């Protein structure tokens, strides 16, 4: 178990990156606490897997250093870093038995056979394949194979960190919950540093203490699920987290009022904005209330998804989503109000704070 520091990591797959666009990872500078459970969240192609492979040593970064507990490991091999990693698609050694598959990482490290047996038996019970221990891994279903991959990642007790690269993609939704909670339990029990890559926000938010949101080769925000929800640092985080995502409306900011079209909204703070920046107002659908008072909207569609309704509307001729309680009424001449505490202001896509 280790504290992991990434120091100004940049990575390009091409040999000679010329412009910023050639970098798959643009600049990552971050500390992962010892024993933390992190989720790395972002859309496909944003550099999550690249970052993970840099931590595990499968890829050498073009620039920057990686430290484990303060020691520079940038030049060390995967094996010397002592990292466990689980991949998106199941990797099994299909000529070996299920038991031998799980024992493989331990035997390669010359762990005494008694200890191997103890660890493997424990893991095999956890992934629920006890009955098949002596059978070959060939012919198992995709999710059983993935459980073996997962098991091989978890079987070593002395690892610096366990990295998961979208490990539950191929697993049934029902089993996903079971496995995720088992991983979580292991985390509590042994205190491994865990990094969990996913593009599924529910998975990220339920798994991790801290969620790292990546977008276009860089980390845009690191925070608890609540922080990501309430104070997205970047409009992307607003869109990406939440269902539906945050409403981001182009707005003219003057002092502490925001003007959207002909409507003006009072802010409860004075945003600090550089002149010339593109300014936007962000508000989550949960904090927009629909009623008979406020600013007029034109409703285009109502989606009833069971626990609540999502109202799609046009506000100052811009699309906006509003969440209404299941039994909330939708008036004939609808108007909206924004909760002032939940309004975020963005300049050039980045959230701005209060004027000092």
């Amino acid at each position: 178990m280790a504290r992991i520091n990434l120091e100004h990591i940049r990575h390009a797959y091409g040999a000679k990156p010329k412009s910023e666009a050639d970098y798959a990872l643009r600049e990552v500078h971050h500390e992962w606490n010892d024993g933390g459970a992190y989720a790395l969240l972002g859309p496909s192609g944003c550099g999550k897997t690249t970052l993970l492979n840099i931590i595990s040593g499968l890829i050498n970064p073009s620039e920057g250093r990686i430290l484990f507990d303060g020691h520079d490991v940038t030049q060390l091999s995967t094996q010397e870093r002592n990292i466990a990693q689980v991949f998106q698609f199941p990797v099994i050694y299909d000529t070996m038995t299920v038991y031998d598959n799980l024992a493989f990482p331990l035997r390669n490290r010359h762990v005494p056979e008694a200890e191997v047996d103890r660890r493997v038996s424990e893991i095999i019970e956890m992934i629920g394949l006890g009955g098949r221990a002596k059978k070959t891994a060939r012919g198992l279903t995709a999710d059983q194979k993935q459980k073996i991959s997962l098991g091989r990642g978890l079987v070593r007790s002395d690892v610096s960190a366990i990295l998961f690269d979208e490990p539950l993609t191929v697993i049934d939704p029902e089993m996903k919950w079971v496995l995720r909670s088992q991983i979580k339990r292991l985390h509590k029990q042994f205190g491994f540093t865990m990094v969990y890559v996913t593009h599924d926000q529910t998975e990220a938010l339920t798994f991790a203490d801290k969620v790292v949101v990546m977008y276009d080769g860089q980390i845009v925000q690191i925070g608890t699920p609540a922080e990501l929800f309430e104070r997205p640092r970047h409009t992307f985080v607003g869109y990406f987290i939440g269902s539906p995502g945050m409403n981001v409306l182009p707005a003219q900011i003057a002092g502490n009022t925001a003007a959207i079209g002909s409507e003006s909204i009072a802010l409860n703070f004075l945003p600090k904005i550089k002149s010339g920046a593109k300014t936007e107002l962000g508000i989550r659908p949960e904090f927009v209330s629909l009623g008979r008072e406020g600013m007029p909207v034109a409703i285009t569609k109502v989606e009833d998804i069971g626990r609540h309704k999502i109202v799609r509307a046009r506000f100052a001729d811009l699309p906006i989503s509003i969440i209404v309680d299941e039994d909330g009424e939708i008036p004939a001449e609808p108007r909206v109000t924004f909760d002032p505490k939940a309004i975020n202001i963005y300049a050039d896509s980045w959230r701005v704070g209060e004027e000092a």
Partner: protein
Amino acid sequence: MEKTWNNKAWFMVLPVLVLVAFSAVIPLMTVVNYSVQDTFGNNEFFWAGTDWFVETLESDRFWDALIRNLIFSAIILTIQIPLGIVIALNMPKKGIGVPICLVLMALPLLIPWNVVGTIWQVFGRVDIGLLGRTLASLGINYNYVQNPLDAWITLIVMDVWHWTSLVVLLCYAGLVSIPDAYYQAAKIDGASRWSVFRYIQLPKMKRVLLIAFLLRFMDSFMIYTEPFVVTGGGPGNSTTFLSIDLVKMAIGQFDLGPAAALSIIYFLIILLLSWIFYTVMTTSDAQG
């Protein structure tokens, strides 16, 4: 679902049946025809029953040639399969090296058999051949025309040169189909180079290796053109394989009956051995 029976469907296979009949069944039946009869030309035939088969199976000539064939195939397989695997493992996986290697590998396969034979026949000659002259000037007494061992070595080296590429290409195809994640997982699991080969690469190559093994066995067991061109079956009878013997018998001596019997026995041996190899290898595959 109800299975539909429509006997008219047989008409669909008719063209293929006609083709196969002309290309395989009818010639084969002609051979069968010769093998059970005696003829002195003029289209006169006398029933001979199993006489030719008995005669063939009792002759030393047949058994000697068969043993030569088996030894030759065994040597070819023990060299070409491991060598092919080793070369395939060391071929580049990406970049400009890939097409270069593939073309170089494919070249020997594109050369006609008799040309390969001629190349080596000239290459090995002591008077004008590059190989023969070089060995002679190094003081090595090499002469494939006089020395049976040298003749064998020449044939084996020639066959390795000609056909190892096939094994390489098949193995390479198997290797490149392995996803990167396997190698990454192996690194994470701390697997040694040998373990990666034993538990990832070899199992993934198993199917193509089976094909390579069968193809190389059948081809080497049927070898004719190259020894015919290079050694003509000599010195003595030392490189007279079944196929060469067969041609000598049928065309040289015009013993059509014994030659036909030998053909059928030869065919059955290849069929039987291929079937045994295939069965053994696929069963072990199923048991894993």
